């Protein structure tokens, strides 16, 4: 009896799981500069802003083009417990509700709730059970939400890196990131061996900053501790400058990475008045918890021409001013224009079924190909005792009712005759 199908045995089907990694490099020029002709005040065609003003989207090409791919979103927020929050002294900040809403939304999804149902703040070292609920928290943060197109199933632990320009000056016309005097790299160093699992959104790692230049852009050695005359309590450590949530594909950057760590540049914020750098009033001044930079704070608003800002100019354009006096869109622009490079590896989890298609010596030696016969005689034979020969180019996988569900093609024909046996391994990934 002639047959065209062969039924799989149980031992012919195997399921496996493999991880596939891709390197994702995002250049700073793509994030700012390429699509505005190098003029920071020009419209950037690959940046999409929304009327709701809650976040900003970055595309890899002018977003009105069908060729554009969404690569990540930027937003910014602060908690109700932040010193910057007007809640502390009942003062109105620009887009305060939206910034708090963004922070709470992200914290709720990524950090979850405590036993009383309150939203947990982002924690610098991931230890949400710390004794002091206000210590070691990230109350002001930039959020980078990478698209699933880039992160796939998750970001590979230990592979994330973002290089940021932190020079307080602005000397090059065009963009903040082009002033390469001082840069820092923020990475999830050793996260493949040291990560946290106490987030409802999956695993997360701690981001740490390091100087690129030998001279150092970071004030190393700052540790947690009590307030001193020149230093507030719980200063920020460069080794805890943000969090990265691998499955969610979200990076939380502590806004203090753009602030100075130096005692004489400690930033204070006066709430309740619009004047924040004049006379000291103990009831109105709040000292911020300090930054990490071994320099003055960065100006965060792109300029149309080079400037070497004075202390007063820095204070009016630094990250705290940005968070309190600017919209989320402007704050996103500020971060974006300082990004020099982002890179990470993504991970795709492939679940595979492997089908072993075994053609034994006495199987699949004839063909129903119309060219196989000439006047019903098999072309590859002269006489009946000649060996039948066929050539395999395709493998069809069928359901029980003979519907073709999957097909595999060989890159070149394989000869099949009674003297050989073939085992073709077809892998279907899901």
């Amino acid at each position, binding site marked *: *009896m*002639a047959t*065209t*199908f*062969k*039924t*799989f045995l149980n031992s012919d*089907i195997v399921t496996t799981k493999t991880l596939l990694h891709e390197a994702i490099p995002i250049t700073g020029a793509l994030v700012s500069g390429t699509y505005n002709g190098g003029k920071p005040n020009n419209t950037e065609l690959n940046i999409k802003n929304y009327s709701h003003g809650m976040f900003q989207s970055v595309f890899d090409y002018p977003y009105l083009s069908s060729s554009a791919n969404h690569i990540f979103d930027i937003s910014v927020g602060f908690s109700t417990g932040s010193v910057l929050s007007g809640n502390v002294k009942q003062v109105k900040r620009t887009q305060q509700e939206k910034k708090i809403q963004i922070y709470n939304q992200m914290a709720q999804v990524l950090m979850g709730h405590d036993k009383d149902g309150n939203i947990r703040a982002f924690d610098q070292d991931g230890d949400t059970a710390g004794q002091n609920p206000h210590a070691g928290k990230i109350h002001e943060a930039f959020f980078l939400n990478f698209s699933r197109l880039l992160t796939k199933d998750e970001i590979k632990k230990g592979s994330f890196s973002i290089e940021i320009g932190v020079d307080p000056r602005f000397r090059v016309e065009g963009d903040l990131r082009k002033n390469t005097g001082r840069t820092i790299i923020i990475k999830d160093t050793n996260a493949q061996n040291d990560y946290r699992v106490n987030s409802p959104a999956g695993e997360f790692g701690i981001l740490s900053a390091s100087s690129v230049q030998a001279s150092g852009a970071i004030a190393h050695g700052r540790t947690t501790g009590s307030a001193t005359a020149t230093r507030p309590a719980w200063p920020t450590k460069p080794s805890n400058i943000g969090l990265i949530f691998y499955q969610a594909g979200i990076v939380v950057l502590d806004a203090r990475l753009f602030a100075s760590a130096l005692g004489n540049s400690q930033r204070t914020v006066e709430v309740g008045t619009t004047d924040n750098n004049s006379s000291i009033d103990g009831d109105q001044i709040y000292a911020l918890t300090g930054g990490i930079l071994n320099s003055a704070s960065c100006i965060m608003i792109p300029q149309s021409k080079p400037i070497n800002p004075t202390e007063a100019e820095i204070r009016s354009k630094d990250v705290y001013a940005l968070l309190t006096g600017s919209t989320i869109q402007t704050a996103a622009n500020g971060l974006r224009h300082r990004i020099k490079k982002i890179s990470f590896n993504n991970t795709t989890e492939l679940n595979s079924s492997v089908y072993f*298609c075994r*053609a034994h010596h*006495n*199987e699949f*030696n*004839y*063909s*129903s*190909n*119309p*060219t*196989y*016969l000439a*006047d*019903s*005689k098999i*072309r*590859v*034979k002269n006489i009946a*005792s000649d060996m*039948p*020969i*066929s*050539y*395999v*180019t*395709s*493998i*069809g*996988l*069928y*359901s*029980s*009712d*003979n*519907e*073709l*569900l*999957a*097909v*595999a*093609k*060989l*890159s*070149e*024909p*394989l000869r*099949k005759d*009674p003297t050989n046996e073939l085992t073709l391994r*077809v*892998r*279907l990934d899901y």
Partner: protein
Amino acid sequence: MAFLDNSGDIILDAVLTDTGRFRMARGDFRIVKFALGDDEIDYSLYNKNHPSGSSYYDLEVLRTPVLESFTNNTSLMKSKLLSISRTNILHMPVLKLHNGGLNGTANASLNTKLSGDLSSYLITVDELSERVGASESLINEQIAGKGLIKGSTTEALASPDSAVIAIELGLDTTQLAPTVAYPSDLVETQFIIELDNRLGSLVDSTGQSVSVSFVDDDGVASYFVGAGTSLVSNAFDTLTETNNNGQGLTRHRVRGPRDKVIQFKILPNTQLANSNFLFDRLGSTLTTSTSLLGAGGGGDALFEENLSFRFIDTFVRVTAATVGVSVDIPIRFMKKV
């Protein structure tokens, strides 16, 4: 589809077909068997006379570039490899359209000829397209043998002057006499007939409808027809094409040992009679003339001259499930404008 890179190791390019994805969405995706195919292979390239010897016979065959996988389930695995335990088979069966029988000497009761003008079966979809009379469409009732299937009603379809599509399975060779026993391991037990479900459905030669086995995601209906059904019969005779010893001429087109004959007609979908939508989308128009289906000319003078018809060309695929061979039969649905 591009060709696969064949410069290095042998690789496999595997994809789910559209039906596979559909089944996955429906939740009954389950692979239970496989088949091997050789769609790209042209066996006429096998050179048994190569001067360098048998190692070089299939040199050209093995150089055949292979296309990437299609995802359309009906575009792949057209020709499958066969498993037959016997290795001394020299002849294998083919499917041949009866088309009036060998040399046109078929018994007159078998109205199986194609339209000679169009090399296709013509299927009229409504009564207007079949009306008899000089001022109407058909020129007279002498339409038998001209490849016309009257599809306006089941009665018209069942009438003897409405053509029947007949396909024979057998060893089409003069090296084996028709009286030689047909190989038992090549006997066919089931045929698969595939047809665009939007356009028509399968009926037997008496107009009785045949149950459709399934309709795939592309709207192609498959009918599994077993050897014991009214559509399938054994060979008509074991005669030859010459009248040896006065025994008569064969009614078959297959010249050697014969297995089965499958006969059917196509009932057009009523939507074709009631709407021009599919004709406008899938078809075109023609005007009869003395050289095309029209009166006064040669060939198949079915209609008056200068009549306009809408038409859709398609085909019916018949596959012998066991031995794997298949044949595509061209059909044309026609509707008078």
